[in-house]
């Protein structure tokens, strides 16, 4: 049991797991979705599912911003990079995401200049240093990252840097959760709420999940104990017949989020009528675009984009994985045709993607899970009951 030694508080984890088990009603299955790629990473890295009773399943949601980018947007970015005098910049995770015409790395091999940056401000710096080039930052990420992009646009405007623009692909978490709640494919009992997204949006936007859908949500930190503690809080709510929003990560997440960050997003960006998510399809009001007042910094207005919708490869089941309908290892090409070295789908690209996380850390628990799913009639005995 190699994973048990991997974190300091394994004894506390086992104690929490026993408390969770004690709350399980006999014969009932519990499914909780974590909507943050960082949580997925922790769950696989520390084999947290192995601590939990067999009847408690963690399902991975669409919380990895790289994973939900549809192929068409990758192709649009490559189209921008192919225009004269363009330097396209983006986060490292995007470089290997396959589009319909290959990845950014493939595109660079064919002559484009696509660079990875740590911060949108690095991209702005490249624009300052290369006044004869058009520098475009491909912005991706949830509300965690959108304020940084917005601040960078404000800075560019203040400095009047005319050769800088952003290709805005920021997405918003709430509509994605709503789409999952409305999907007939999946019955969930509650949510492990995202940590860093919530530092920006706070806990209030999740209210509707508890109120309208009757599901509890607990905003969670990233450490193994945070996640187990959140599962415990969810189980307590269910056992008491409650559905509320709770904040397990209050040491970082303020209940009202970061009002300044929200204001900056609102100043520079507005909701799109709809946006295509890989796997989830078109979701209304689920992404941000640059406001007309900042059109001079909007790559979608500067460049004529093909905007073609590109279907995912037939073999790829990222869509089902992103919706939590399939576990990574249930995908037909997982670990064979699709690996982190040669990814077919986005979930295998980012370290926060469920497939990459599972591929890197999860192998040791796969056999156990396979056994568990093949013998599904008899509920496994659970400690502490």
């Amino acid at each position, binding site marked *: 049991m190699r994973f048990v030694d991997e974190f300091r508080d394994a004894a506390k984890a086992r104690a929490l797991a026993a408390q969770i088990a004690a709350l399980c009603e006999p014969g009932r299955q519990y499914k909780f979705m974590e909507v943050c790629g960082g949580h997925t990473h922790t769950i696989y890295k520390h084999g947290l599912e192995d601590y939990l009773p067999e009847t408690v399943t963690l399902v991975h949601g669409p919380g990895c*911003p790289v994973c939900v980018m549809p192929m068409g947007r990758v192709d649009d970015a490559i189209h921008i990079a192919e225009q004269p005098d363009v330097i396209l910049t983006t986060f490292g995770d995007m470089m290997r995401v396959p589009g319909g015409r290959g990845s950014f790395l493939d595109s660079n091999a064919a002559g484009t200049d696509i660079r990875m940056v740590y911060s949108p401000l690095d991209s702005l*710096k490249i624009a300052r240093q290369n006044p004869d080039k058009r520098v475009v930052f491909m912005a991706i*990420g949830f509300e*965690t990252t959108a304020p*940084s992009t917005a601040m960078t646009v404000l800075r560019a405007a203040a400095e009047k840097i005319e050769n800088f623009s952003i290709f805005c692909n920021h997405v918003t978490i709430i509509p994605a959760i709503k789409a999952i709640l409305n999907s007939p494919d999946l019955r969930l009992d509650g949510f492990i709420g995202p940590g860093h997204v919530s530092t920006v949006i706070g806990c209030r936007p999740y209210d509707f999940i508890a109120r309208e859908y009757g599901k509890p949500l607990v905003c969670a930190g990233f450490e193994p104990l945070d996640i187990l503690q959140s599962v415990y809080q969810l189980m307590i709510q269910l056992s008491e017949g409650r559905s509320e929003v709770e904040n397990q990560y209050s040491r*970082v997440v303020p209940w009202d989020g*970061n009002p300044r960050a929200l204001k900056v997003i609102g100043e520079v960006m507005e909701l799109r009528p709809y946006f295509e998510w890989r796997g989830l399809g078109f979701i209304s009001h689920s992404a941000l675009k640059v406001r007309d007042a900042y059109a001079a910094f909007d790559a979608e207005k500067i460049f004529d984009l093909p905007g073609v919708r590109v279907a995912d490869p037939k073999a790829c089941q990222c869509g089902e994985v992103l919706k939590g309908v399939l576990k990574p290892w249930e995908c037909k090409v997982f670990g064979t045709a699709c690996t982190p070295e040669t990814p077919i789908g986005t979930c295998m690209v*980012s370290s926060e993607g469920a497939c990459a996380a599972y591929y890197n850390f999860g192998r040791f628990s796969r056999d156990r899970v396979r056994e568990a799913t093949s013998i599904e009639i008899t509920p496994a005995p659970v400690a502490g009951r």
Partner: protein
Amino acid sequence: MCLGIPGEVVEILVDRTDLAMVDVSGVKRAINIGLLDKDEVGPGDWILIHVGFALSKIDEEEAKAALEFLEGIGEAYEEEMQALLDSRIE
């Protein structure tokens, strides 16, 4: 890319009050603090850094615990740290 890395504010730049020199695992880098209230941040404060911006203020205990956790996750953290160290924002 969704990682938040803790750092300790060393000083606020005099000519650019939206930037702070921040000690991140022993290395000093400029970090944008424009998303926080100006009165809220000063030398000795700990912040959570995401793509070059301070996203929230945290206490020292949380910062130490978060760092320890990040160091334990391996490759993803090393890549993020390297990217941060290669970055020179202005």
